[in-house]
């Protein structure tokens, strides 16, 4: 069976379209991050989370009413897909107050079962945020180093640009949708970073092979050829990875659905960027670089400086 028979798509010719699409999505995401910020979960922001299951149907408004009696009407109340389950997120609620709130629920609404209770102090949130920033930096540096050692610097540069593109788009969408940024989401971003470079590497690997085989071919043709040759496997591997992520999203319960959503977005964006962004970017790099070389050959170093000024 073959997904793309006699495939010969011209990715290079239409690269400006891909650049524009990416730029628009990135811009919207970045604006949202800038102006709206992230909806940090209690892992990072500190606060209290209560996951409750009531023994009778209750509404979000009823819960908010009762929380209002404790000056907590500003809390986020999320109805879960599971029956009569809710997650309440609030600033720090101490043990005493929590007991009173639960008692109030019991007396005025329905019996709540505490499924989960988390309290994170602001110090811990701060520390956790810092350690995840370290993790992200570590992962990026590790991947740059690895790709540089395996290929060459320009390859790792475009891979990392593609990774940044993927991570920023997922974060942007999460900011736009006001989805909670929890420890799990950061873990998903890290996984995306590690996984999405795979497709890029597979194309680059093929490109290098083709560069050796056909030394006279123009770069754009080589890139097109490499993307086309690896297209089936890029799509297939992404597809098979997405299958279990989808089942995780639909069957994994509310605890894992946002995690699965982040992975899903990341996988799709990652595959797209490997094909439409990373490899074409290599061509841009080569053009700048070669122009420089030609310039050097033609008129010496003065020209190069002028070139840079442009």
């Amino acid at each position, binding site marked *: 069976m073959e997904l793309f028979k006699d495939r010969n798509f011209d990715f290079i010719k239409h690269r400006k379209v891909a650049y524009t699409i990416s730029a628009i999505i990135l811009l919207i995401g970045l604006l949202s991050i800038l102006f709206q910020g992230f909806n940090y979960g209690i892992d990072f922001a500190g606060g209290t989370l209560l996951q409750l299951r009531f023994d009778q149907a209750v509404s979000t408004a009823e819960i908010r009413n009762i929380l209002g009696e404790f000056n907590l009407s500003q809390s986020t109340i999320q109805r879960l897909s599971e029956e009569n389950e809710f997650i309440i997120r609030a600033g720090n609620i101490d043990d005493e107050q929590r007991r009173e709130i639960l008692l109030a629920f019991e007396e005025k609404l329905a019996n709540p079962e505490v499924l989960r209770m988390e309290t994170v102090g602001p110090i811990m949130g701060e520390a956790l945020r810092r350690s995840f920033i370290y993790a992200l930096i570590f992962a990026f540096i590790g991947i740059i180093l*690895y790709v540089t050692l395996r290929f060459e610097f320009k390859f790792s540069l475009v891979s990392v640009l593609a990774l940044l593109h993927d991570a920023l788009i997922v974060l942007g969408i999460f900011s736009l949708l006001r989805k909670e940024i929890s420890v799990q989401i950061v873990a998903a971003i890290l996984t995306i970073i590690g996984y999405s470079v795979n497709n890029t590497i597979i194309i680059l690997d093929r490109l290098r092979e083709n560069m050796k085989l056909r030394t006279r071919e123009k770069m754009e043709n080589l890139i097109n050829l490499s993307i086309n040759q690896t297209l089936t496997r890029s799509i297939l591997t992404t597809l098979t990875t997405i*299958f279990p992520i989808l089942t995780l999203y639909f069957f994994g319960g509310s605890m894992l659905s946002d995690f699965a959503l982040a992975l899903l977005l990341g996988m799709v964006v990652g595959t797209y960027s490997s094909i439409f962004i990373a490899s074409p970017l290599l061509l841009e790099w080569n053009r700048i670089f070669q122009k420089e070389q030609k310039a050097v050959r033609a008129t010496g170093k003065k020209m190069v400086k002028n070139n840079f000024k442009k």
Partner: protein
Amino acid sequence: MNWIKTLRIIIIVAVIFIALILAFPLNEKIRLGLDLQGGSHIILECVDTPNAPVDDDAVNRALEIIRNRVDQLGVSEPVIQREGAKRILVQLPGVDDPETAVEMIGKTALLEFKNEEGETLLTGAHLVNAQASFDQFGRPIVLIEFDSVGANEFGEATRKNVGKILAITLDGEEISAPVVQEPILDGKAQITGNFTVESAQHLALLLRSGALPVKVEILENRTVGPTLGKDSIEKGIKAGLAGLVLILIFMGVYYKSFGLIADFALVVCMLLIVGTLAGLKATLTLPGIAGIVLTIGMAVDANILIFERIKEELRLEKTFRASIDAGFNKAFRSILDSNLTTLVAAFALFYFGSGPIKGFAVTLSIGILASMFTALIVTKIILELAANRLSPKALL
């Protein structure tokens, strides 16, 4: 068949066998995280107060007292350890009443006896025993007993305050304010407060384990009830099985007989993951289950890369066996590269991450290594063995 091949087959069978032994029965061999079995994860910090500045010794003593309290609560396999200079990590798996447990752990429990002027005459430092009991009216009380030093001090305090109030306070709050009838010289006393049976027992426990030398604050408390844990396991397994079946069908349909070989390798891979998890005594968390589910999809990636390569080689009119060899050789670097970069990310997550998320990094890493083993070794051996019976047309 040459001996190297035979040896490889023996190794594969042995690995599968060991994994089976390590992994089954699952419910005994797999250690579940607090988020799956229910329980509390608490981080405490010792904080300075004017009277009791925090030093290394105080933290260690606080840790011992907390350990004492946890033991008396009857939690099985608790974790109590120092984290850095001032922090103490407490994990209470499967605790029935996390609410009370947390309360008992964090209480300073400084017992003081004060005269009417508010001066502290003695503390609970010289207690040897504390028991919940009932007075003659059937009301819950706490009986306390001092050692000889304490008995002397207590005798002195009661002798000087006959006919006056000798208040008993816990952490500065008055529990009871009895009037001293006569000097008590045998070092035995009873605290009559507004107790329930339960609160009397709690106070007795706190007094037995001693007062914390410094004030502790709860920095973080993550508690999962047993219902949610069970729910999470069920849903995780359901998602995993659904994903597995989808992939098995997909590979079978797309690559036919070759797909079935990949399917077999995938099942072996799952077995290896669970076996390794059990063998390493690693903790399975909810994100850990997600990591395994994700690996199901990533594991067949290597097979797809190999099969697609073999296809290309076949199109170059190579023989089937030569195509298999070339396919594996040429796909090897790509497989290694792509898996190593994911490992880098998993390592970062393990090193900097915390709690259940570490479980994700662990299963993801194990999954990547297991999938490399099954794709590069198990699949290859089966392909070579079955080469005569397979039709290359199934791929094309």
